């Protein structure tokens, strides 16, 4: 493009170049190519992401790559060592005064450049602006709603991958068209499965993401993968065991002065046998209820300082089968059943999301719960092997399971709801069976129990 600067300027326009390295690389680049046009650097890839440019290893391993390299050599280009993010691809946009776009070219692979004559033609006054506003077609949304009415009463075809595909027909295009580069998001249990996909997607939208994990090695491996896949280097891991109150307090103390915008309660366990934690709680109850309650309490003071704070509780469709049960949350008086313990605590999470929403109403923080459907995650495979064997061909991908979490965390209009329950980006009922409804007394008892057990509520909230 540098050879066409004069032709671009003859049309009353200017060439502006953005690269993904540091300023010193840009200075050398400017000197090598004798550029006198604006040359900007974007090491965090914010503008690349906002422009919707591609990134990835597959794109750089195209069979056309040798031909593209040969073409570049013939044109006089001599590639030296790559500076900046090696996996990032480029693109070209022609923008008119006022912001109309008359040309867009998103490179599909290394060496894929747009024809120069097309770019110059788009600078002509007669060039029509590109229609950019993408809306979900009405017929598609209508089809999605109609099919949802048919499949939703049958749990299997709603919670599985077919359900996601049908529900996604109603998704608003552009809902995740957000730049989260000024947001810090905390995701518990983020080293695999739905938590990993949530962290990955938030990092891809530019957020600073902190993975709260029990295992440093697995957490650091996840951080590395997310950095490589997104180019976002603002991804880190903190060691926290959600079933250990001391571990949660240690983390909160380490993070005492850090701003927080989003907290995702995703960490989950499904043990075969009753396991008692250091604090004397049954592990499922500790990791799903007491621990997240304490973490929310300790971080609430920082969340309310965000202009748009969001807390998301990742529940489970299994909670539909159980009533809130506070008679024996630690399973000391009944034979342990991991699946029931899981479902009861996931029911408690939905209630806690509603109670926290009330507690924080009037602040800048919204609190919602969701369930991801049935996703093919490492946890499902190891904890529910029989279920996984039977359903594996129908399960959603972890990314599909994470979609509604990301939507609740990132979508601008999702800040209008608090105390609600979502599935596939739509609000859902919290009860499908009449016997699962809890009383107001039960709800109050849950809050008081969590306060009592976590012992720390009044300190920082």
């Amino acid at each position, binding site marked *: 493009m540098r050879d066409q600067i004069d032709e671009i300027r003859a049309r009353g*326009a200017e060439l502006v170049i953005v690269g993904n390295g540091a300023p010193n690389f840009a200075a050398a680049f400017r000197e090598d190519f004798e550029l006198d046009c604006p040359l900007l*650097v974007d090491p965090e890839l*914010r503008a690349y992401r906002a422009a919707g440019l591609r990134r990835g290893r597959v794109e750089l391993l195209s069979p056309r790559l040798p031909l593209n390299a040969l073409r570049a050599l013939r044109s006089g280009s001599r590639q030296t060592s790559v500076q900046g993010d090696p996996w990032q691809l*480029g693109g070209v946009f*022609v923008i*008119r005064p006022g912001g109309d*776009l008359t040309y867009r070219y998103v490179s599909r692979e290394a060496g894929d450049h747009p024809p120069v004559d097309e770019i110059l033609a788009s600078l002509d006054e007669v060039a029509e602006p590109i229609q950019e506003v993408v809306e979900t077609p009405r017929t598609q949304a209508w089809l999605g709603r109609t099919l949802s009415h048919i499949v939703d009463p049958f749990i299997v075809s709603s919670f599985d991958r077919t359900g996601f595909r049908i529900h996604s027909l109603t998704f608003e295009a552009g809902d995740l068209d957000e730049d989260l580069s000024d947001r810090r998001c905390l995701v518990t249990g983020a080293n695999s499965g739905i938590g990993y996909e949530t962290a990955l997607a938030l990092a891809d939208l530019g957020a600073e993401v902190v993975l709260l994990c029990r295992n440093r090695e697995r957490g650091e491996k996840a951080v590395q993968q997310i950095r490589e896949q997104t180019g976002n280097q603002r991804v880190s891991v903190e060691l926290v065991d959600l079933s250990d109150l001391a571990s949660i307090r240690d983390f909160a103390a380490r993070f005492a002065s850090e701003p927080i915008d989003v907290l995702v309660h995703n960490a989950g366990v499904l043990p075969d046998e009753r396991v008692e934690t250091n604090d004397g709680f049954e592990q499922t109850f500790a990791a799903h209820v007491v621990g997240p309650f304490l973490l929310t309490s300790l971080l609430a003071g920082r969340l309310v300082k965000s202009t748009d704070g969001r807390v998301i509780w990742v529940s489970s469709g299994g909670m539909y089968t159980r009533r809130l049960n506070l008679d024996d949350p630690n399973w000391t008086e009944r034979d342990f059943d991991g699946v029931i313990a899981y479902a009861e605590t996931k029911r408690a999470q939905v209630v806690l999301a509603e109670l926290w929403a009330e507690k924080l109403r009037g602040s800048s923080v919204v609190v919602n719960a969701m369930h991801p459907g049935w996703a093919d995650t490492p946890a499902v495979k190891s904890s529910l092997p029989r279920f996984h064997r039977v359903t594996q061909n129908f399960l959603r991908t972890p990314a599909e399971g994470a979609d509604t979490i990301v939507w609740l965390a990132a979508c601008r209009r999702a800040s209008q709801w608090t105390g609600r329950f979502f599935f596939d980006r739509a609000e859902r009922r919290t009860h499908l069976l009449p016997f699962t409804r809890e009383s107001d007394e039960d709800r109050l008892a849950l809050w008081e129990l969590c306060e009592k057990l976590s012992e720390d509520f009044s300190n920082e909230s």
Partner: protein
Amino acid sequence: MQVSSRLSGIALSDWKGTQHDLGAYWQERSIVLVFIRHFG
């Protein structure tokens, strides 16, 4: 949202380290905005 709207709030530094609002470049004239794959 238009690409230009998403880009206009982003400030990037030039080769000397001075910050520039991307949106300022198309306030008065058309621009060809080229994102290169890498320097080098």
